[in-house]
């Protein structure tokens, strides 16, 4: 459900801080038909060219608020709204090298009325200029 729209492949950029390339970020949508409190996002897994990014090197930013994965777990009220483009920032010194990369995203949702985890995956090819 909505897997096709999870990664916003036109919204990828390297992140510069104090003149240094410290990582990259990309647009991401919740693959679900309603918004959810962040604590119900059980897991976000990002891979770059099949290499998994450690959990402590990812943050999620939405409507001006930034969360580590650990902070999301204990935030039941702030909502990733339906269709809202949030940004996942990956700490990676040097950012993404110029050229073509494959970005993978797995989102695991804890939905109260489902007797199993709702796991959705997507992979998109992106080009860094």
């Amino acid at each position: 459900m909505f897997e096709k729209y999870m990664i916003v492949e036109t919204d990828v950029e390297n992140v510069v801080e104090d003149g240094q390339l410290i990582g990259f970020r990309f647009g991401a949508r919740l693959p679900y038909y309603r918004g959810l409190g962040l604590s119900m996002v059980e897991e976000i897994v990002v891979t770059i060219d099949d290499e998994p990014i450690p959990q402590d090197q990812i943050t999620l930013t939405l409507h001006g608020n930034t969360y580590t994965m650990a902070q999301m777990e204990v935030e039941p009220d702030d909502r990733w709204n339906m269709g809202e483009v949030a940004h996942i920032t990956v700490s990676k010194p040097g950012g993404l090298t110029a050229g073509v990369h494959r970005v993978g995203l797995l989102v695991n949702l804890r939905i109260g009325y489902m007797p199993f985890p709702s796991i959705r995956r997507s992979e998109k090819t992106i080009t860094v200029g």
Partner: protein
Amino acid sequence: MNQSKIKRGVSLYSYQEEFFLRKLSLEGCIAAAAATGATGIEMVGEQSIVGFPKLTDAFVDQWFGWMETYGVTPVCHDMFLDYTRFKNRRMTTDEALQSIIRDLKFANRLGFKVMRIIVNTTPELMELAAPYAEEYDVKMGIEVHSPWHINSAWMARHWEVMERTGSKYLGFIPDMGAFTKRLARVMTDRLIRQGANPDIVAFVTEQHEQGVMAEYIIAQVAQRSKRPMDMAVAELSRHNIYVNPNSLLQHIPRIFHIHAKFYEMLDDYTEFSVPYDEIIPVLQKGGYTGYLSSEYEGNRHIQDIHEVDSVEQVRRQQVMFTNLLANA
């Protein structure tokens, strides 16, 4: 010819593809629903309202302004109960009750007189919430969603609470997906694209149409294939059940609202899998006077290969309802 008392509504859930992609705004969804001639609006608050459950006075004014502009009425708010809201524990009963009260207040403020209760809500919680439903004047209908049907054990337990309390605020909201006479082609085609064997699909759809028990279909497919995608095809028959629409008759006084689920409206204004021409006469015979609320759910099965046109799909279903209701 009797004028049918059944009313036509649209759940804005139907436009989820366009709303998700910001091709339609909330007002655009309401306008699309109204353009079909439907008069009732159903909304999933957690879907349509950014920052749910917060409502500003300005938004509430705008909401009722839209209702007036487009000549429609708020009918049903669909709630969720996130028992899994906290990572390491389930919600307590009191937290769950407070969550329901939150939604009752939300529904009341936007003028919804009915609230869809998500199916995982326990009968015990319904009993605790009934006095609040009365206080906020919002009827609570447990959603009877396939693979449950109205006489499933879980629904029998809910019915016991309705009978015992005698509350006029507790009832049912059947989803017409429990009358899947033919498996939806949009679902089987998607599974074929994902690797399912077309021969297995042909077998399962044929068995389902014959009314063979889902467990038997699954057992037979399991002997022919070990591939997960083939098993997923067999399991469609378990998740998309067909029971006799007459099963609704004895419950009509307790039916507050109806989710007119559909997956694919064809050019000839018929739905591929749900036999509305058989369902609507049952509702009329039983004296149902509530809404038939369009609930399009085909988008998720075709979005990988097609542009989705939810507006056209809902329009076609509403034309079908107009025709079937006129034939009463």
